[in-house]
């Protein structure tokens, strides 16, 4: 396949990824009559937004008093002051409107007797800037992500969005001036490459939970968009901040929503002690996720873990009663019975901190524009946008609050859609793609073609992936130190080098998943290096990045965002935006729950 006989399609906007972020943007554009294509490597409702359980934060004040400014305070504090306060203000202000909009579009939110949307307490939420627990998370039982994703897909059916289902995005293409002009994609069913030319391209490809062996993520969460950005010369921001969810099913990884604790569940160690009282006397089990995950890991390290290997703790729910459990948390009851043969109405669930969410990502501003440092300031990359877990706005900073990710995707999905509309008005014509950029993308794809696959076969995709995931778990987990990270970096760099030995044994054109998995592994390897390198460089503890050798937060040296470049594994830094849009800044202060 050469660039002359490559099939081409043209759209105003190419959206890569059909989770909540991609679908919300696509909807915004399709309703404005923009010609928009959504490319997804799975059928849209298989995207991982579907697995979000607990809910979406918005200060509706349906259950307890609330307002968006308190939500903003909690989010800034939750981020351990690394979040950009302009973006956080924008998100928290927009939240209520966007929940109502989703409700009008059909999301089957759970209800209160008043007929209003049900809201549950979640971790890190407070009233009145650090006071009593708030109840801010709008829920559809414990299937909120499923409800939102299906509704957004349904609305896109109504709006007649053009879908390319089961197409894998390989690389971005650009022109000599650096405008991003679409992407080379691969039709999985036929193995045919296709060039989608677009005036604007939006990356909404989700996170990279598959970096870690035990994770709550789907098989598809390989951070493809993040790696595409790296290959296009764009840095990734704050990659050292990876969220470990306190309650993944121990050893297996399936997520048990924070809503389980929001509804009144709590954690106990082998002595039956409700240990969170020691770590977070005020918020207890509803402290921020990084705090609870560290507490669990500490209990286990100090020998108070449960089970034969003392390697997990227990999540107790039976005291809530069968009725509440099966009404409010039917999904996790089903999951617990299916995968553990445990009925949570009778027995506790074994849990352990599990890799869950990529706080870092492609640097953007609050309009979804991808931005990179230029001289003393920063500039947007013309034509390129990113939203959701693959992006780093940054509203989550060093630690994301539960219930803020579903909010993030709809708020910034819509914001990016709106900004793309403006961009399209000022950029009416398609630009000429640079052949060299296209050639590079094709060469990348053809690495896995028969005759061009020059690996000696001493390594396999599944073998290397397993080793990578184990390495990340052993060397870049909840607690980190200089020595361990250094060793980890050597190991992931060695893995990067060993990629050249990989040879696949399937060159079929038809639905070739061996080739897709090889492309995904390339992406994961790049992201592993980005994560470990960024973690090694940051000599402080902040949010989810916890260094035993640097146990304190260091605002003098490290109140700044990391930027990792693939070229030379280079690091750079940029300041945190402490100034909100309209309100007073929340200056960093000690973070206690």
């Amino acid at each position, binding site marked *: 396949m050469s660039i002359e006989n490559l099939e081409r399609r043209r759209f105003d906007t190419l959206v890569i990824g059909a989770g909540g972020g991609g679908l919300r943007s696509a909807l915004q554009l399709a309703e404005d009559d923009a010609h928009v294509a959504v490319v997804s490597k*799975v*059928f849209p*409702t*298989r*995207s*991982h937004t*579907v*697995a979000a359980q607990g809910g979406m934060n918005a200060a509706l004040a349906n259950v307890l008093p609330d307002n968006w400014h308190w939500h903003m305070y909690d989010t800034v504090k939750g981020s351990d002051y690394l979040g950009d306060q302009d973006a956080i203000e924008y998100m928290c202000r927009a939240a209520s409107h966007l*929940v*109502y909009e989703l*409700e*009008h*579009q*059909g999301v*089957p*939110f*759970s*209800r*209160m*007797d*008043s*007929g*209003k*949307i049900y809201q549950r307490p979640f971790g890190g939420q407070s009233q009145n800037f650090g006071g009593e627990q708030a109840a801010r998370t709008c829920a*559809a039982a414990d*299937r909120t992500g*499923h*409800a939102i994703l*299906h*509704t957004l897909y*349904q*609305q896109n*059916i*109504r709006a007649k969005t053009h879908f390319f289902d089961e197409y894998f995005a390989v690389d971005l293409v650009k022109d000599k001036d650096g405008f991003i002009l679409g992407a080379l994609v691969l039709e999985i*069913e036929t193995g045919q490459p296709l060039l989608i030319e677009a005036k604007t391209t939006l990356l909404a490809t989700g996170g990279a939970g598959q970096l870690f062996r035990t994770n709550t993520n*789907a*098989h*598809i969460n390989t951070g493809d968009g993040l790696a595409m950005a790296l290959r296009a010369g764009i840095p990734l921001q704050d990659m050292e901040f990876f969220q470990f969810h306190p309650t993944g099913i121990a050893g297996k990884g*399936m*997520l048990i929503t924070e809503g389980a604790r929001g509804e009144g569940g709590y954690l106990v160690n082998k002595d039956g002690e409700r240990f969170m009282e020691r770590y977070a006397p005020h918020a207890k089990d509803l402290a921020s996720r990084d705090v609870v995950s560290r507490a669990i890991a500490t209990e286990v390290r100090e020998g108070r873990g449960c089970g034969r290997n003392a390697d997990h703790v227990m999540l107790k729910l039976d005291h809530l009663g069968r009725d509440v459990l099966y009404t409010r948390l039917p*999904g996790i009851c*089903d*999951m617990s019975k*299916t*995968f*553990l043969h445990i009925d949570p109405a009778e027995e506790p669930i074994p849990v352990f901190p599990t890799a869950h969410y990529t706080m870092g990502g492609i640097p953007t501003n609050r309009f979804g524009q991808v931005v990179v440092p230029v001289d003393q300031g920063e500039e947007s990359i013309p034509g390129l946008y990113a939203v959701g877990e693959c992006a780093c706005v940054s509203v989550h900073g060093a630690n994301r609050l539960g219930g803020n990710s579903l909010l993030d995707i709809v708020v910034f999905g819509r914001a990016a859609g709106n900004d793309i509309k403006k961009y399209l008005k000022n950029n009416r014509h398609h630009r000429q793609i640079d052949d060299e950029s296209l050639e590079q993308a094709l060469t990348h794809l053809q690495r896995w073609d028969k005759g061009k696959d020059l690996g000696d076969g001493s390594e*396999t*995709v*599944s*073998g290397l992936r397993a080793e990578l995931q184990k390495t990340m778990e052993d060397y870049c987990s909840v607690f980190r130190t200089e020595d361990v990270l250094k060793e980890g970096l050597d190991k992931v760099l060695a893995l990067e080098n060993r990629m050249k030995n990989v040879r*696949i*044994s*399937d060159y*079929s*054109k*038809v*639905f*070739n*998943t*061996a080739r897709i998995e090889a492309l995904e592994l390339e992406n994961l390897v790049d992201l592993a290096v980005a994560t470990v390198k960024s973690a090694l460089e940051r000599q402080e503890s902040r949010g989810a990045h916890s260094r035993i050798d640097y146990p304190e937060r260091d605002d003098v040296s490290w109140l700044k965002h990391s930027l990792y470049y693939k070229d030379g594994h280079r690091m750079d830094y940029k300041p945190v935006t402490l100034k909100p849009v309209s309100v007073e800044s929340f200056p960093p202060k000690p973070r206690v729950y």
Partner: protein
Amino acid sequence: MRFKIYRYNPEKDQKPYMQDFVIDNVTDDMMLRDALLIIKAQDETFTFRHSCGEGVCGSDAVNINGTNGLACKIRCSELKQPIEVRPVPSMPVIRDLVVDMEQFYHHYRAVKPYLTVTDPVPEVEFRQTPEQREKLDGLYECILCGCCTTSCPSFWWNPDKFRGPAALLQAYRFLADSRDQATAERLQELDGPYRMFRCHSIMNCVNVCPKGLNPTEAIHSIKKLMVKDLV
């Protein structure tokens, strides 16, 4: 543990065949998807869809010992050996366990599976009582895996005309929603001898649904609404 897996690659196979695989050290809690992943590691050419691994994305519907189900939600230890795994019935096979779902999605889109509201919307949420909301339970949870529709003999006979249990369940999900204002149009669309009335309450759909939903009951409810609409 012994497996018999359906294999077909249109590029090299004249016709499909069953291939034997053996996996050692199968633990009691190993799910079928885990076993399929082990087989995939042994033989990269083996092809199947899967993603979340916890029964919410709906990717890995397959036919297991003659019954449709999600590979990620079924324990190997609870299945009779050799475990026979085939693509879900009645759909065109693309490769191995991967089928072409387009017809299934077509019927889904055809029932206009989105909330339709003609009145101006309120500034806040629509009010919906817990009782009204409860009517959506057992309907909105559908994951579009296709286990039900592809196990339905009525669909096998009229795949182009009969909407099938999954699409009809979705149709009722909106009919049952107190916020929806397109009842008449929805009922009219489903009238006629094929689209819904091919359902003969065989109830395969109910037996196989991995989410425990009941499309047959939803279809009965639609029929009741039609009768009410008539009188």
